[in-house]
C-alpha cells in the first residue's frame, strides 16, 4: 500500500498492522490533546498545581525529557566535533529522539504557562538575568538546530530523494552538518546548564540553592554533566526497544557498547562531582542559612531514601555496571544499568523541582505534598506516545539505520 515510500531493500510490517500500532498511540495523543485543550480553555485550576507548587509534574517532565534527549547533541558532538566515526550509525536515531524530546518539552512549556498567548514575551521582553530566559532562547535555538538536522534525514525518503532540488539540498546540508552540530552542542551545553541554573539560583530555597562558580551555580555544570551521562543511555534504551519491537538488529553491538562505556565514565565523573557538591552544600551552604542537612529530608517521599535512590541505586550501581567490561557486555545488566541511569536523572530533576518547593523555608510554615492530577499525568506522558509515533514513521519511511541492511541479511 505504502511500499513506494518504504526505503529500498528494507522489510517493514504490513500497512494495516502499522496503522493499528499508530492508531493505538494516537489515542493517547488525542487524550493528551483533550487534556491540553481543557487546561488552555479553563486555565490552570484544572491541574493540581498551586501556589506552593508552582512547578510540578510538567516542569519535572520538561527537565527530565530534555536531559534524556541530550543523547542527540552529545552523539552529534562526539561524531562531528570529536570525530568518533562509529557513532554515525546511531546518530540519525539520536537526532530524531532529541527532536522528539525537545518538541515535547516546548509543548509542555506552552501548557505550563498561565498565558500561552503571551508566551513570546519571554523573547521580546527578555530579562537576560533570568535562567529561564536563557533556557527559552537556547531550547528554541537548539530545537531549530534539531529540525535542521532532521531535514536531511527526511529528505532521504525514497520519493523525496527523487526531487533534484531536495536531493541537492539534503546533500549540501549534510555537507556542512558539522557546523550545525557544533552550534547545537554549544547551545545545548548552555541550556542543559541553564536548566540547572533555574534551580540553583533560587537563593530563597535552601534545597535548590548552590554556590556560584563564576556566574553560574554549580547545578549549571551538574545538569550538563548528568544530561550527557544519561542521554546516551536513553538512546541505547530506545534503540534496544526498537530492536525488540521490530525484531531486527539495527545498530551494531560495538556502537552500543561504546556509547555505554562513554555514558558509564561520564556517570562516574558526574557522580563524583555531584558528591562533592552535595557535601559542600551540606557542610557549608546549608549551615550558613541556618539549615541542617537532615532537615532537607524530613519525611516521605522526601526522606534520605530519595537521595540514596538518586545517587546510589540509580547512580553508583549503573555507573559500576557500565564501566566494567564484563557486566556491560551482559545484555540484561546493560539494559538494567541504562534504565537505572535514566531513572536516577529523572529523580534528580524531580527533587530539584518538587522537593525544592515542598520544603517549607519559613520555620512556621507547613509541609504540603503535591500529587499531579490526570491532566498533568497524561500530558507529561504523552511524549512517549509522540515518540512511538514519530519514531515508527521515521523508521518505516526513512533509512535511519545505516547498518540495518548489513545486520539483517
Amino acid at each position, binding site marked *: 500500500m505504502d511500499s513506494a515510500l518504504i526505503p529500498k531493500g528494507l522489510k517493514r510490517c504490513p500497512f494495516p498492522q502499522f496503522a493499528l500500532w499508530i492508531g493505538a498511540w494516537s489515542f493517547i495523543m488525542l487524550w493528551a490533546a483533550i487534556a491540553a485543550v481543557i487546561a488552555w480553555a479553563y*486555565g*490552570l*485550576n484544572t491541574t493540581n*498545581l*498551586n*501556589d*506552593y*507548587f*508552582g*512547578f510540578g509534574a510538567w516542569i519535572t517532565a520538561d527537565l527530565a525529557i530534555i536531559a534524556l534527549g541530550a543523547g542527540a547533541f552529545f552523539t552529534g558532538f562526539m561524531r562531528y566535533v570529536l570525530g568518533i566515526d562509529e557513532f554515525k550509525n546511531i546518530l540519525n536515531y539520536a537526532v530524531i529522539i532529541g527532536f522528539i524530546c525537545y518538541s515535547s518539552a516546548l509543548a509542555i512549556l506552552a501548557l*505550563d*504557562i*498561565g*498565558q*500561552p498567548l*503571551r*508566551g513570546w*514575551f*519571554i523573547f521580546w*521582553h*527578555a*530579562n537576560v*538575568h*533570568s*535562567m*529561564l*530566559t536563557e533556557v*527559552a532562547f537556547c531550547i528554541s535555538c537548539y530545537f531549530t538546530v534539531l529540525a535542521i538536522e532532521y531535514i536531511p534525514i527526511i529528505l532521504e525518503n525514497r520519493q523525496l530523494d527523487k526531487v533534484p532540488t531536495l536531493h541537492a539540498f539534503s546533500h549540501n546540508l549534510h555537507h556542512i552538518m558539522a557546523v550545525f552540530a557544533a552550534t547545537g552542542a554549544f547551545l545545548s551545553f548552555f541550556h542543559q546548564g541553564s536548566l540547572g541554573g*533555574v534551580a540553583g*539560583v*533560587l*537563593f*530563597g*530555597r*535552601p534545597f535548590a540553592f548552590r554556590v556560584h562558580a563564576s556566574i553560574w551555580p554549580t547545578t549549571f555544570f551538574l545538569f550538563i554533566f548528568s544530561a550527557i551521562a544519561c542521554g546516551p543511555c536513553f538512546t541505547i534504551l530506545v534503540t534496544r526497544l526498537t530492536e525488540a519491537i521490530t525484531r531486527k538488529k539495527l545498530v551494531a553491538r560495538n556502537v552500543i557498547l561504546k556509547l555505554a562505556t562513554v555514558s558509564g565514565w561520564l556517570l562516574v565523573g558526574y557522580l563524583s562531582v555531584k558528591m562533592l557538591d552535595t557535601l559542600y552544600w551540606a557542610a557549608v551552604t546549608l*549551615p*550558613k*542559612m*541556618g*539549615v*541542617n542537612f537532615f532537615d532537607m529530608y524530613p519525611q516521605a517521599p522526601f526522606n534520605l531514601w530519595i537521595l540514596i535512590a538518586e545517587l546510589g541505586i540509580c547512580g553508583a550501581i549503573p555507573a559500576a555496571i557500565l564501566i566494567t567490561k564484563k557486566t556491560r557486555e551482559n545484555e540484561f545488566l546493560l539494559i538494567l544499568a541504562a534504565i537505572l541511569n535514566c531513572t536516577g536523572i529523572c529523580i534528580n530533576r524531580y527533587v530539584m523541582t518538587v522537593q*525544592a*518547593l515542598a520544603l517549607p*523555608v*519559613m*520555620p*512556621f*510554615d507547613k509541609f*504540603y505534598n503535591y500529587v499531579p492530577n490526570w491532566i498533568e499525568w497524561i500530558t507529561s506522558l504523552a511524549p512517549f506516545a509522540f515518540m512511538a509515533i514519530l519514531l515508527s514513521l521515521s523508521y518505516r519511511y526513512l533509512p535511519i539505520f545505516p547498518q540495518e541492511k548489513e545486520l539483517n541479511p
Partner: protein
Amino acid sequence: MKEEHKEGVQGHEGGAHGHGEKYKFGMVIDLDKCTGCGSCMVACMTENNVPYKKNETNKLDSITWMRVFKATNGKPYPDTDICYFPRPCMHCEGEHGHAPCVSVCPATATDYNYETGIVSQIYTRCFGCRYCMAACPYHARYFNWWDPVWPDDTKESLSPDVSPRMRGVVEKCSFCFHRFQGARDKAYAEGRREITENEYQTACTQACPAGAIVFGDLNNPEHKVHELKQSPHAFRLLERLGTNPKVYYHSTRSWVRRAGDNYLTNERSK
C-alpha cells in the same frame, strides 16, 4: 518640541536614568501589638481588588497579598504560646535590587524600583511561568488560577486605582503603590516634589486597629520606621538567606524572634 521637554524636567533630582535612591519604603510590624485579627488582610483585599471564591479554605490557591501566619512555640499546655506573623510582600532588596523573584522573571514582569525600593508586579506583562513563586521563600506571590468573579453588584465596590487581574498571572502586595502615585499626583498639583510620611501609607497600616504596622521611608530619619527598625528586638524574616527584606518585625519574646529565621540546633539566634 524636545527642547521644551528638557526645560520642563530641569531640576529633577531622580538621578541618572531613574536609578537614584530616593526613597526606601519599608515596614516595621510590632508582633507584640498584633492581635492576629485579620483586618489588615481584609483592608488589603478591598483596597487592591483581590477576588474571592466560594471556598477559600485551600490556602494553597487562596490569594491573600497580606497573609497572617500563626507560629507556635511548640511547647505543651499550659506553656504554649502563639504569635501571628502578618506577611506582606517583603520587597526584598537582595544585593543591589536582586530580589529572589526579580532576577528570575524571564519577561521582566517584575522589577526593583530603585527610586522607591518597591518590587513591582505587572500583570499584563506576566505570562504566568510562576518561576518567581518558586523563588520566593515567603510565599508572598500568588497565582490567579481562576478568572476573578465578583458576585451580584459587588463589582461596584472595585477600586479604579488597582487593575483587576486576569486569570493566569502572578500577583502580590505592591505596598499599595497606587497610593504613592496618588500622593505624588497631589504633590505635583501643589508644586511639590516630595511627599510627607502621612501622605503615603499602605491600606494595612492604615486599617490595623492595634496600630501594629508602621510604614515609611527606611532611609529617612524623620520617619518612624527609621528608628523602629534599629531596635534590638527588631528582626526580619529569613534574613540569613540574603533576601534583604524591607519588612521588619519587632517582638520582645525571644522565641518569636527565633521563629523568624532558621537556626541550627545549638546555634544562638540574634
